[in-house]
């Protein structure tokens, strides 16, 4: 699985972009999006997903169940 950003909730503050260890986050059309192929859910990097931890709005960075759980290499 990867994380995704609920666009309607995103304040476009960019805090997640700098914290993502995979450079998976970028701004598109006014809000930020996570590229699922690059998202590792921070497994192997940090204890908690950084985008979730830094996001100022609760329930904005959420698990996207359309993708399989990331497997640590």
């Amino acid at each position, binding site marked *: 699985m990867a994380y995704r950003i609920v666009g309607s909730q995103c304040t*476009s*503050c*960019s*805090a997640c972009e*700098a914290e993502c260890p995979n450079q998976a986050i970028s701004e598109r059309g006014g809000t930020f999006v996570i590229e699922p192929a690059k998202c590792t859910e921070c497994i192997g990097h940090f204890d*908690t997903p950084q985008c979730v*931890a830094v996001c*100022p709005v609760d329930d904005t960075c959420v698990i996207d169940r359309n993708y399989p759980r990331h497997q640590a290499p």
Partner: protein
Amino acid sequence: MDSTGHLETDASGAGVAMDAIMRQVAEHKGCGTHGGAGKASCGSGAGENDLPAEIWEKVKNHPCYSEEAHHHYARMHVAVAPACNIQCNYCNRKYDCANESRPGVVSEKLTPEQAAKKVLAVASTIPQMTVLGIAGPGDPLANPAKTFKTFELISKSAPDIKLCLSTNGLALPDHVDTIARYNVDHVTITINMVDPEIGAKIYPWIFWNHKRIEGVEAARILTERQLRGLEMLTERGILCKVNSVMIPGVNDKHLVEVNRAVKSRGAFLHNIMPLISAPEHGTVFGLNGQRGPTARELKALQDECEGEMNMMRHCRQCRADAVGLLGEDRSEEFTTDKVMAMEVNYDLESRKAYQDAVESGRQAKVAAKREELETLAGESSDIRILVAVATKGSGLINEHFGHAKEFQIYELSTSGAKFVGHRRVDLYCQGGFGDEDALETVIRAINDCHAVFVARIGGCPKSDLAKAGIAAVDEFAHEFIEKSAIAWFRAYLEKVKSGEVAHQARGDAAIRQGALLATAE
């Protein structure tokens, strides 16, 4: 006020090392008054003769660091720093409204390059714009690359503009050397507590070392980082202002302790601001009904802390993209689209000529006040009253009552006229607040005042004000505020003495919370 607030310095002070001066400022209690009723306003209210020359040089045209300067000089904020590393219960990052005026709110964020262009455009249009600040809308030091890139570009293209930033302090110790390297000589830290138990009620979490930390632990880390950052800045001779949000029942009494803690670490100025917590802002405090202080509560706390250090009372809690004199916002004139289309001719010489003219007007104002103050010598009375003033700037009574978006508040006593705050009223001419009658809004905001000084006022509002016990005074139109206020106060004392007027205490006043209903005409 100022005249009682002398710092003991003389020509020999010029040779004293900067750190010694900073220590002197830090250690100096109340700038020359020790207890008693005659607490002095220094720093924010201090003039040229009240501060060491080096400090005066730094603050004399900084509207946020000098109350005296804020009548004459303008500032701008560029919104290059959207990310934040902490969550505050008085802030809601989802909220954005063009008519809203408070920190954390902006209409558009800028890249450093756009910001640099905007600064040049504003500086060319508003020659009294002397200060560029980065204040968010998040935390500048949670966006260090964008913040310092902006400073770098501006210091190259507009070297006469002072740079400052405003931070929550969490990341501050990591960046103090960079701040010094970019010649940022004014830093504001928002410090709402030095007790983590109280902090836990204000900050739900911080983002620290790649973790979200909550509760008392978060507040403990935050206060340690803030105080260490403050010490590191003052050690380097960087002027520090501390902002504190006054939250009744949470940290109001505790702010006296905060005041002592920051003073002992060399902070130059303390700015205690009222909590803004309208429910429609959607902040935690707004939603759970936490009220802000009344005007009297705020002033009482500011007065209590003033014996300890310099207090700022002219803060307008402006947006992270505000442009203009404090109390006015011209950001609409400088949207990114408009700025990019502007042909900018940055002329250092003409800016300097304009500012020289401002300086001579300013000196005339100070001289007029001093002269008038002498007429109060020998008068003795315990009467202290507040008056409201309608002004567009330059230290003059030059605004029509109905056009005033705010009133400046002066406290009058036999020691002079002292600026003690301001009250937002929006535009009385363009309708009131909600269902309330427009004039009622104004009266509520200045209900603690005995008089309101205006350039002009209609007969109707004048008589309604009189019914509410507030005298509308228009005979000092276009004259200097302090000189006029002192002259009026002297006449008031005469009337009280002769029995023509019975002196009565006034009630409390409300601090406006909601969004601006109308922007400038």
